[in-house]
């Protein structure tokens, strides 16, 4: 049966674990998967600029032996002529076996999924959801820690508009004995509906602070985020907040030796390049993990749709 993934919560905890197991198997045995998607086509519809997510999806499909057809920007597509997301989804369903879509409007992926006849993967819908980034985050946490419970997870930066943060909180709140340290400027705190919908719902302990250095010694995971210019209506607010947190080697002095530093990328200046060689820096591994998890997800959805 055709099924789409719009939100990380569309996947159960058990399904996440199965995806991680598939990704681990892909990493261990890439040849086994090199032709599983022969003659299958992924359509990448990116109506908003993206480098890594689109390339990650495309690389994932190629490594499964499939093909990619693409719309690289809204300006070169029928959306520029005023075509609706629903019509685009119906049309592209005629060409492709699965769709990965990014769109600046929140809920666009849901509209596509309800109109497409093939599975749709949300590759980011505005500030709303970005489930495959969370899949990359989860595989990274798994590969670094070999567990999803008993972790102190610091999330730092733009916690208000940061969709990856919301998805990570939602996903990790389903596991026991975790606690969150939410580090942000006052103006960019985690919205109450996220706290209520996951942290409070599952009785996950959390603290809110503006002080990254004070929080550092207790953290097992530090998830840094960029203050995103494109999420602000007001340039002045962006300029005032953009340099709120910059992670430097000096600030890591009190960190645990096995801290895992994650970042959804792209970074601007919030993680100093001097940290890139620190063994605790995991953000480029995270990029690679994202490709493996996208491979696992494409496989799962094509199998469920009866395409494979």
């Amino acid at each position, binding site marked *: 049966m055709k099924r789409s993934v719009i939100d990380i919560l569309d996947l159960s905890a058990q399904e996440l674990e199965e995806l991680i197991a598939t990704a681990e198997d892909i990493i261990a045995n890439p040849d086994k998967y090199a032709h599983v998607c022969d003659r299958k086509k992924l359509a990448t519809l990116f109506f908003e600029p993206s480098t890594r997510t689109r390339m990650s999806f495309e690389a994932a499909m190629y490594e499964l032996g499939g093909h990619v057809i693409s719309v690289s920007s809204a300006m070169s597509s029928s959306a520029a002529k005023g075509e609706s997301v*629903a019509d685009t989804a119906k049309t592209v369903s005629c060409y492709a076996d699965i769709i990965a879509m990014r769109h600046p*409007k*929140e*809920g*666009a992926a*849901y*509209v596509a999924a309800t109109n497409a006849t093939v599975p749709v993967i949300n590759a980011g*819908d505005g*500030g*709303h959801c970005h489930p495959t980034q969370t899949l990359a985050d989860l595989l990274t946490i798994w590969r670094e820690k070999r567990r999803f419970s008993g972790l102190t997870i610091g999330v730092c930066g733009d916690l208000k508009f940061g969709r990856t943060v919301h998805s990570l909180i939602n996903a990790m709140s389903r596991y026991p004995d975790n606690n969150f340290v939410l580090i942000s400027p006052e103006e960019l705190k985690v919205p109450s509906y996220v706290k209520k919908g996951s942290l409070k719902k599952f009785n996950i302990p959390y603290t809110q602070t503006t002080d990254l250095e004070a929080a550092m010694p207790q953290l097992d995971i530090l998830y840094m985020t960029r203050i995103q210019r494109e999420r602000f209506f007001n340039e002045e607010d962006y300029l005032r907040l953009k340099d709120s947190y910059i992670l430097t080697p000096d600030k890591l002095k009190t960190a645990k030796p096995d801290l895992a530093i994650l970042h959804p990328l792209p970074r601007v200046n919030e993680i100093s390049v001097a940290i890139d060689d620190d063994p605790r820096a995991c953000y480029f591994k995270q990029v690679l993990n994202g490709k493996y998890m996208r491979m696992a997800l494409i496989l799962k959805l094509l199998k469920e749709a009866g395409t494979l």
Partner: protein
Amino acid sequence: MNIDSIQNGVVIDHIRAGQGMRLYHLLKLDETELSVAIIRNVVSQKMGKKDIIKIDADIPVNLDVIAYVDPDATVNIIRNGELVEKRQMELPLELHDVLTCKNPRCITSTEQELHHIFRLSDRNEKVYRCIYCETKAGG
């Protein structure tokens, strides 16, 4: 104050005071030519004050809208001057084209053909969220 009783029509009673006009608009009664009375701040033994809407025509009213505005309201159907049916409200699971999503980033802000659908996400606190962007109704 006297409002004539109606022979055939609908009386929405026990509306929380202050919500009558809002309900009038959400039921789109302002778009009809029907005789409608909105009675505000009526003294009520049970509620202190309440609003009442009387519609002088036996028309179907959207019970989901009434339940959304005030699940404690009652709907009385009047025929030949007699009360023939009294309907209790229950919070609807979804509201279709009743509310508009106010999130400027929502897909409904640019795609005019989409239905505005809100789903009940918290029954205790009566919270509805847009099915597309999850923005809270009224937020």
